[in-house]
C-alpha cells in the first residue's frame, strides 16, 4: 500500500511539474522523481477546501480519486456530493461548488452563466469518466449474442417478445435460441445510463425507437428495477431477461455484441475509449472545452458506441490561488495513468486514451488564479 502511494506521488508531482506528454511522463515515473516547478505548488503547500458536486455515475470512481488525492494532499478538505448531474452544474455555476461532475456537457445558457462565474474566463469540460454500457442478458445456453441497434430497440420497446424471433435468429445463425419470452428490464430511477442508452437507440435505430433520449425511461410499463445492482439482480434471477448496465457489472450474464459498421463489437474499455476519442467535439466551444457528441453512428471497427461519458467541469481561472492549485492538482491526478487505473479498478470504467489525456493535460496546465 505504501509503495503504491509513493509511486502515485511521483506521477503526481511529475504531472504537476512538467508539460511533458504523458507517454514521457510514464517513463519518467520509473527513472526520476522530479519536483518543484511551474505553478509553484508542491504537495506540502496545498491546503484549504475543494468541493465537487455532481453525477452519481462517477461516485465509485470519485471515491478512488478522493482516496488517492487525499493520500497526496492530506491538508486539502476534499468533498464530492453525488447529488446528480443537474445539481452539480447548477452549484458550479452559482459558485457553491469548485467543480462539477456531470453526465451532460453545459448547454448554451449554462455556458454563458459559467463563463460569468469564472470571471469572464474560459471553462474546462473534460470527459474524464468513460464507461461502456453493456446489453446483458440471462439466457440458458447462450453466452454471446450479436444484436443490431434495430433489434435492441425492438426488444426494449416490446415489439420483439421471444428469443427465437426471426430478427434475433437472423443475426445469430449459430446460436440455439429458445422460445422463452423476453423480459426487458429498465432502470426505475433517473439515470445517466438510461439517457445514454436511449440516446444510442434514438440515433442508431430511429425508425424503431422514436422516443427522445431521457434519463427516465420514456416508455410506459415494462419491467423496471432500482439502480445498476437492481437491474442486474433481476436479470440474474429471471430467465429470458435482458437489460442495459455498466459493462463492469454484467458479471456472469451474457453480453451482447453490437453491430458497428459491418461487424459486431463487444463492450470493452478500449472500444469505449476509442469511440470517445474519435467523436466530434461540440462546435463553438472554448479552447479548453472538450465537450463531445458521442458518435453513436460510428462505423469504425473496434469502436463501441454505447458509452456513458461523464465530465469534470471547472474554471480555467479561479479567484483564489489556493483554489486554483487544488483544482489543478486534483485534475492532474484524475487524468494521470495512476488516477485512471485506480478509478478503473474501483469502478470498472474505461481508462481514457493517451490522446484524451494529452488534451486534458493542456487544460489542466492552463488553470491559474486571477492576477
Amino acid at each position: 500500500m505504501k509503495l503504491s502511494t509513493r509511486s502515485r506521488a511521483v506521477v503526481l508531482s511529475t504531472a504537476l511539474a512538467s508539460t511533458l506528454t504523458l507517454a514521457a511522463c510514464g517513463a519518467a515515473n520509473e527513472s526520476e522523481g522530479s519536483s518543484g516547478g511551474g505553478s509553484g505548488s508542491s504537495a506540502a503547500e496545498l491546503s484549504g477546501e475543494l468541493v465537487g458536486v455532481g453525477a452519481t455515475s462517477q461516485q465509485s470512481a470519485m471515491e478512488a480519486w478522493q482516496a488517492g488525492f487525499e493520500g497526496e494532499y492530506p491538508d486539502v478538505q476534499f468533498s464530492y456530493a453525488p447529488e446528480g448531474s443537474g445539481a452539480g452544474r447548477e452549484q458550479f455555476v452559482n459558485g457553491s461548488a469548485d467543480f462539477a461532475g456531470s453526465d451532460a456537457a453545459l448547454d448554451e445558457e449554462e455556458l454563458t452563466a459559467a463563463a460569468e462565474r469564472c470571471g469572464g474566463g474560459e471553462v474546462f469540460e473534460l470527459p474524464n469518466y468513460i464507461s461502456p454500457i453493456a446489453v446483458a442478458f440471462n439466457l440458458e445456453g447462450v453466452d454471446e449474442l450479436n444484436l443490431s441497434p434495430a433489434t435492441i430497440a425492438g426488444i426494449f420497446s416490446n415489439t420483439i417478445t421471444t428469443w427465437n424471433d426471426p430478427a434475433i435468429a437472423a443475426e445469430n445463425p449459430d446460436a440455439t435460441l429458445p422460445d422463452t419470452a423476453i423480459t426487458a428490464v429498465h432502470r426505475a430511477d433517473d439515470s445517466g445510463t438510461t439517457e445514454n442508452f436511449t440516446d444510442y437507440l434514438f440515433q442508431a435505430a430511429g425508425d424503431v425507437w422514436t422516443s427522445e433520449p431521457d434519463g427516465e425511461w420514456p416508455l410506459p410499463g415494462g419491467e423496471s428495477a432500482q439502480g445498476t445492482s437492481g437491474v442486474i439482480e433481476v436479470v440474474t434471477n429471471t430467465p429470458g431477461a435482458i437489460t442495459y448496465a455498466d459493462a463492469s457489472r454484467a458479471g456472469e450474464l451474457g453480453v451482447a455484441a453490437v453491430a458497428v459498421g459491418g461487424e459486431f463489437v463487444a463492450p470493452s474499455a478500449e472500444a469505449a475509449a476509442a469511440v470517445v476519442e474519435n467523436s466530434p467535439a461540440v462546435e463553438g466551444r472554448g479552447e479548453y472545452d472538450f465537450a463531445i457528441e458521442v458518435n453513436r453512428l460510428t462505423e469504425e471497427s473496434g469502436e463501441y458506441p454505447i458509452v456513458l461519458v461523464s465530465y469534470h467541469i471547472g474554471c480555467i481561472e479561479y479567484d483564489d490561488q489556493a483554489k486554483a492549485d487544488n483544482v489543478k492538482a486534483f485534475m492532474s491526478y484524475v487524468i494521470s495513468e495512476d488516477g485512471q487505473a485506480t478509478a478503473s479498478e474501483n469502478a470498472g470504467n474505461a481508462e481514457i486514451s493517451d490522446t484524451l489525456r494529452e488534451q486534458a493535460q493542456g487544460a489542466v496546465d492552463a488553470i491559474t488564479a486571477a492576477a
Partner: protein
Amino acid sequence: MTATKAPIEPPSQQRTVRRPGDRLFSGAAKGSGIFILLVLAGVAAFLISEALPALTAPSEEIPGGEGLASYVGPLILGTLLGAVIALLVATPLAVGIALYVTYYAPRRIAAGMGYVIDLLAAIPSVVYGFWGIAVLAPQLVPFHQWLTDTLGFLPFFAGPASTSGRTMLTVGIVLGVMILPIISAISREVFSQAPALHREAALALGATRWEMIRMAVLPYGKSGVIAGAMLGLGRALGETMAVAIILSGGAGATLNVISNSNPSTIASNIALSFPEATGLDVNTLIASGLALFLITLVVNMLARWIVNRRADFSGAN
C-alpha cells in the same frame, strides 16, 4: 397574573395548592403538546409551499407532460393497492396470531412467540427489500402464473403474469409481513384485556372456547384490531425502501397486480426520482408527497372515527 385574582377564580380551584413543580410540569407538558402541533404545521406548510409551483405550473411542464393529476394519479393508486393487499394479508394472520398467543398457546410458548413476532418489527425495511427481490419474488413466479390461469377473469389477475415476480402482489405480501407485528401486538393487548367476567360467563353457559372468543373476546377487541390495522396501514402507505427495491414500477394506472408493469407508489417514486431531480421535478415530487400526507391524514382520521364509534358499545369503557 395580577395580585388580586382571588375573586375571579372559580371555586373549585381555590383549594388547589400549586407548588412550583406543578407549574413547571404543566408548562413543560403543555409546551411539548404545542411543539408537536407546530412541527406538524411546519411540515404541512413546507409541503404546501414547495408543492405550490407544481400545482400552478402548466401541465406540459410536469414530468410526463400531461399534468399533475395524471402524474400523481397512478402513484396514489399504486400506494393504495399495495397497502390494501398488505392489510388483507396481515389482518387475518395477525388476529389469528394474537388469539393463539393469548388464549390457545401454553404460557411458556406464548411469551416466546410474542417476543419473536415483535422481532419482525425490528428488521430494517431494506432487508425486507432484499429478501423480497432475491427470495420471495422468484418463488412466487409460478403462483402468479397459476393466478392468471385460474382467476384471470378478475381484473386484478388479468396478466400476463410477470416473469420476475416483482409485482404489486409480491410487494403487498412483503408489506403484510412488515405490518404484521404492529397489528398483532395491539390485537394481543386488547384481547388479553377482555373482561374475565364475560369470558367466564360465556364458558359457564356452555360455550366452547371458539364460541367464548366469538362472543366475549372479539366484540370487545374489535376496535383495538381496527386501530392496529390502521396503524399498520399507515406504515404500509409510507413504506419506501422495500417497495423501491422490489417493485417493477413506473407504469400507468392499472388494477392488474400480477404483471410486470405496475404503478409505482408515492414514497418509492420519490426515493427513486429525487436524487437526479432538479427544478420543477422536485416540486412535483413534493406535491406527490403532499398527496401521501393527506391520504395518511384521512386514513388516521377514519381510524379514529371508527374506533370512537365502536367504543361506545364494545364495552371497552
